[in-house]
Structure formats: structure tokens, C-alpha cells
């Protein structure tokens, strides 16, 4: 028997699990994405494509790229997690019919 203080120690609430997992996994994927992307493209070259006058240094370019990837990945996995978790249960459907 596990002593009383350990009861419930195993659980994070489901919402907390979902939020932190989405944030963390999209962070990791964004880190890899940023690395690959900026190995191929120099932010200084890219800034010229959008706007010749846009005077952006590399640091800001890397940061912008990273947050772009992070937000994109977070939206993607967040929506996926939401749809998977809120999908109608097969059991419930059978019961209704």
C-alpha cells in the first residue's frame, strides 16, 4: 500500500497536461525548424525580400523566426489536441442509436 501522501501525486489535471505538452512540443519542433531554416537562409538576406528599407539585424531575425515557428507549431498541435479531446466518443454514439 502506498502511503497517503502519495495518493494523487501522479496526476496533473488534463487541461494542464494538454497546455504544457502543446507548449513544450511546439517549442522543441520550433527550435529544430529554426535551426534548419536559418542554416539555409540568412535573416539579413530575407529582410531585403520583404522590404528593402527594413533594417533588421540577425539577432532580431532569428528571434522573429523562432517565435513564428513556435506560434505556428503551437496553433497546429493545440488545435489537434483540442479536436482529439473533444471528438464525440464512439461509445456515446452507440448508446444513442
Amino acid at each position, binding site marked *: 500500500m*502506498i*502511503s497517503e*501522501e*502519495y*495518493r*494523487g*501525486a*501522479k*496526476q*496533473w*489535471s*488534463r487541461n*494542464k*497536461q494538454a497546455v*504544457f*505538452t502543446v507548449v*513544450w*512540443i511546439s517549442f*522543441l519542433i520550433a527550435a529544430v525548424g529554426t*535551426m*534548419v531554416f*536559418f*542554416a*539555409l537562409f*540568412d535573416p539579413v538576406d530575407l529582410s531585403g525580400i520583404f522590404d528593402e528599407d527594413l533594417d533588421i*539585424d*540577425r*539577432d*532580431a531575425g*532569428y*528571434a522573429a523566426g523562432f517565435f513564428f515557428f513556435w506560434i505556428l507549431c503551437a496553433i497546429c498541435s493545440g488545435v489537434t489536441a483540442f479536436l482529439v479531446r473533444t471528438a464525440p466518443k464512439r461509445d456515446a454514439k452507440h448508446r444513442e442509436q
Partner: protein
Amino acid sequence: MNKPQAASMYESAKKIYPREIGGRFDRLSKIATTILLGLFYIIPWLQWDERQAVLFDLPARKFYLIGLTLWPQDFPYLALLLIIAALSLFFFTALAGRLWCGFACPQTVWTEAFIWMEQFTEGTRSQRMKLDKAPWSLTKFRKKASKQFLWITFSMWTGFTFVGYFTEIRQLGLDILSFSVGGWTLFWGLFYGFATYGNAGYMREQVCKYMCPYARFQSAMFDKDTLIISYDERRGEPRGGRKRSVDPKEAGLGDCIDCQLCVQVCPTGIDIREGLQYECIACAACIDACDSIMDKMNYPRGLVRYTTEHSLSNETTHVLRPRMFVYATLLLVLCGALVTSMATRTPVILDVIRDRNSLYRELPNDIIENIYTLKVINQSNAARDFVLSVTGFEGISLDGAGEQLSVDGGGVLSLPIRVRANRENAFGISNIEFVVTAKDDESVSVVEDSRFLGPTP
């Protein structure tokens, strides 16, 4: 799913107070933690050739690794290195289970360091539990405040060190002292510091349980010959308390005295006696705990031990098995490829870009001209002179000077080049090659393909 279970899933997390335990594996983990953290904090301070030995200089897009300078063009090496790292993880997981989790994962290593600071300021497990239950007092405040002080200082130092891998750490230190750190540098330092603080101070085992992909799929690399930490159920059961003088066999008991020490020391709060669980990060604290009890009871050690499923069911454990050969072969091939390609890497890169505005120009005397921009990157650390030539078909030549170029160490030379040929040789599309060779060393040479366009005949 029935109601009570569903309800329990929403139960909020309770804090786990891992109990400290000495022993063989605890010593091992302390050594691993000290070495790994030591490396992390010391490496950015090392110098090589009057510059930082390991510096991923993102603003300049150059990576310095001791004597080596890597460029964005060397990205394949990084990709190969990452694949090798992933394969090694598979290899060691199949061989020895979650060694990575228990001894080398940054999450474990930093958590360990944060727990040391917690023990130093708040005391042992029971003292910490008592302290958390106690009402706020001056002593409680003092203990909590000194813990936070240590944690935050350590986190900030960690963030500073992390940024020190990307900008020169000595200069960064001076900038901090004079309050002139750049905005992004400061941001990433605080970001990494805060992440360390949250992950190692508060989230701890929850990261392994809920957020780590490796923890979920490592079971795919496990088989019955993988080294795992397991409770020997046949020896331990039936468990139960007894006096030291009682012979367990006569009392009808197994060797487990149900002291629950293995549960108390577990950083993820599981009971190893319930079998292999994905929460187990294989830190081996329960082995140390159980061994200490077995010693006290004068029973043989190893009721909880490193073992394999085959060995637990009295079958032979096979270390050499097809899976191991496949992983090992792949690893050897990839490592070989990495070493060979690094060793034979020529420290010069040539990029050729054709002028996009015109296909070709017709000059007097039936001469056709194409325009290119060459980028010559000298990857060695000293300045070098190069000789440029072009080949492909008869009568092709470079126009004028510019055949000899001097490029600074680690520098890039951008060079517009006119290539000319006689009309009768240059009809249609011809493949040509640019060759750049170092003047002082003919083996430092690089060839880049391009095309020469001429009129249709």
C-alpha cells in the same frame, strides 16, 4: 470509463518530496551530475587561439568548435551529428534501458542540482514536509527565501552561461557589469534562466511524465533483454513487516519488509513493486534504498536491482541480439561517414550564381559573354590567395584580371566575373566548371558546376 476513475483524473497534483538516500547509484548520479553541469558551465570560458573555444556565433553565422570553424554550408555535418545522437539513444536504450533519463538528461541533472539546494536550505524530506505544512513564520520565510535566492541566482547564471555559447561570454560578462547588454541577449538569457527555474524547481517529474516524447516511445526500443530496474516479485512476496530475528521462511514471508523506502525515495512518486512503469526514469534511487534495508536485515542485496525480464523469469539474457547489431552497424557507418567527411573537408567553398538579368551578351568579333557572381569563402583561419580558372569547352576564358584572389581568414569574397567564348563554340547550353585552388596548397581546391548560354545556331 467509470465515474470514480474519471474524477480521479482531475485530481490536482500533489507535491512529491523525494527522500534523500545514499548508496552506489546515488554516488554515480552525483558524479554524472557534477561532470555534466561542470562541463556546461566551464566550456564557454575556455579559450583557443585567442578566441572562445566553443562559440556558436549566430550574429556572424560561424560556429567555432575548438580548432574548427563551421559555416552554414556545413549544415549536413550538424544533421549527421543529430542523427548519430538519436541512434546512440536508441542503441543505449535497447542495451541498458533509460540510462539517459536517470543520469544524463538535462531535466534530471538540473532537477538534481535544484534538489541539492532545496535540501541545503530546507533540510531533509520530513523537515521539508513539516515546513510546508507549518504556518508562515520568520524561520519558514528565511528558509524559503534562501532557497529562492539560491534557485534564482543559479538559474540566472545558467541563462547567462547558455547565452555565452552564442555570444562571447567574457565580453558578455563585462556588458552585464556595465549594464549594456543587448536586448535580445538579455531576453534569451532570462528566457533560458526562467525555463531552468520552472522545469527544475517546480515541474520536475511532471516534465518526464507528461511532456517528454522519449519517455512515451522508449518502450518501443525495449525488449526482454533490456536492462531495467525491477523488483524481484518472486523473492519479495508475500511482503510484510517483521522483526529482524524472525526467519521469513518460517513466518511465510518474502524478503520485502514493506518499509516503503523505495517509494519515498522515488523522484517520480511511483512504487517500483508494481512492475515496470513508464514514469520510471531509471535513476536507481530505489535500488540504493532497498539495498540499505537488505543490509540492515542481513538479507542478500538485490531485491530491487538492475536486471532483465528474461533474467527475472530465470531465462538467459542475450546482450548480442539482432537489434543491437543493426543499431551498432548503423552507428559505426554514420560515425565513419562523419569522421571521413570532416577529415577530407576542403576549407574553401565556391558558390556560383548566374546573372539573372540577361542570358548572354554578344560582343564584337563574334564573342559571347556570360556574367556570373562568384562567392569564395575561405574557411581556414588565415588569409589565403586563390587561383580561379574555368573549363568546359574550347576557347572559354575568364575576362581580364581577377583570376587571382585573396580572401581573408574566415572571409567571403564576392566577385562579378565575365566569361567569354567564341560564337562557334558556344551555341546553346554548355556545361562549364569553375575551379578555385589555393596558391599555397593544391589539395585545397573546389569545383563548382554552372552553365554557359549562347545563341541558337
